[in-house]
């Protein structure tokens, strides 16, 4: 089947920042994104788990964004502004998409 090159950006970020991040992505002209729940994790700021978390403060989410190659930099800059002072991870992977006209 015909597929086209694109980039898959995955941003793991604190839940209280989700709105700000997706707002920034939309402002940067991203056509869509998907938010996945995260159960727990570990990093420089220690280990945490959602189960039995009273506070939203500790939770994280994963935001996935498929985007054309030429728009990657705009996206990363927008995302980085939000993520900069916060804990979180940003990865970019090469991928192929079906129905490329959508992105």
């Amino acid at each position, binding site marked *: 089947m015909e597929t086209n090159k694109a980039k898959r950006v995955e941003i793991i970020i*604190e839940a*209280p*920042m989700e709105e*700000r991040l997706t707002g920034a992505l939309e402002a940067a002209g991203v056509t869509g994104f998907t938010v996945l729940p995260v159960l727990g994790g570990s990093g420089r*700021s*220690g*280990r*945490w*788990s*959602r*189960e*039995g*978390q*009273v*506070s*939203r*403060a*500790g939770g994280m989410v994963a935001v996935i964004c498929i985007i054309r190659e030429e728009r990657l930099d705009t996206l990363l800059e927008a995302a980085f*502004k939000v993520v*900069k*002072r*916060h*804990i979180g991870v940003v990865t970019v992977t090469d991928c192929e998409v079906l129905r490329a006209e959508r992105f």
Partner: protein
Amino acid sequence: MLDTIIGLAGDNLLSPIILFFVLGLVAAFLRSDLSIPEAVAKGMSIYLLFAIGYKGGVSVSDHGIDQSLLTTLAAGIVLSFMIPIVAFGLLQVMTNLSRTDAAAVAGHYGSISIVTFVAATSVLQSQGIASEGYMVAIAAAMEAPAILSALWLVSRGAKPTEEEAQEREGLLREILLNGSIVLLVGSFLIGFITGKDGLAEIESFIISPFKGVLCLFLLDMGLVAGRGLRNSRGVLTVGLISFGVLMPVIGSIFGLLVSMLIGLSLGGTVLMMTLSASASYIAVPAAMRVALPEANPSIYLTMSLGVTFPFNLTLGIPLYLTLATLVGN
């Protein structure tokens, strides 16, 4: 007096509520995999907010709006603004936290813990002491101001950078409209509008099972507090622990003075003291993650949930009740 405190504390310590909290703590320390699903814990906290808000509203509609409601509201807001400043000063003396960490911790102590409030209500009830129904509304009003104090403490002198300013934008709206406040105030208003007739319709949902749900909820709090303490062993210094026990007592004395000034009933005084003494672990941490991401969440969560919350639950509330009774006589 010591007798009374010990007697009260003894009663309190052997109530099912406290024992389930302890069960949670113990299970966490033993590294049991016992856990309450996140959705169920959130569901229980929604139930608790709904029930206490509604009951408060019904009680106000029943006794008529007391003239002192507005005064007490104002007093609560002032306390929430001021307590962080005291806490910040104390932290700088007692600990060597950075300015940012100290401001973040201080913010938590100005705000309130609604479960501590509920526990105090339930102690009052078992002692047959009445209190002003609107205290629930005061609790809601005291959640947010402390956050502004914390931000002010950290940025005194320095102007926030453009990015910081951007992040705080909208924060005030978010804080004032956070779920707990909206549900608590909304249920309070609906209770006020529908009054005793409304209560009769939903009584067997919000009154009879209340204590039982509270037991399960405190089990979860114990699990979370215990896991928090276990994961942050390095964090707690002697200075911090002392602060976590001393600060609620100081807060409660502020609450006591203000209550005397505005003439609250004995029950109302105890609740105001409890609100002043308790530290937030929901609204403020979330706000701090957005506005002060450099502050270390392990510190403020461990302090409020791991030290001050158990202290208030077990010894604090009986102490505040004793103090208020003594002063009242």
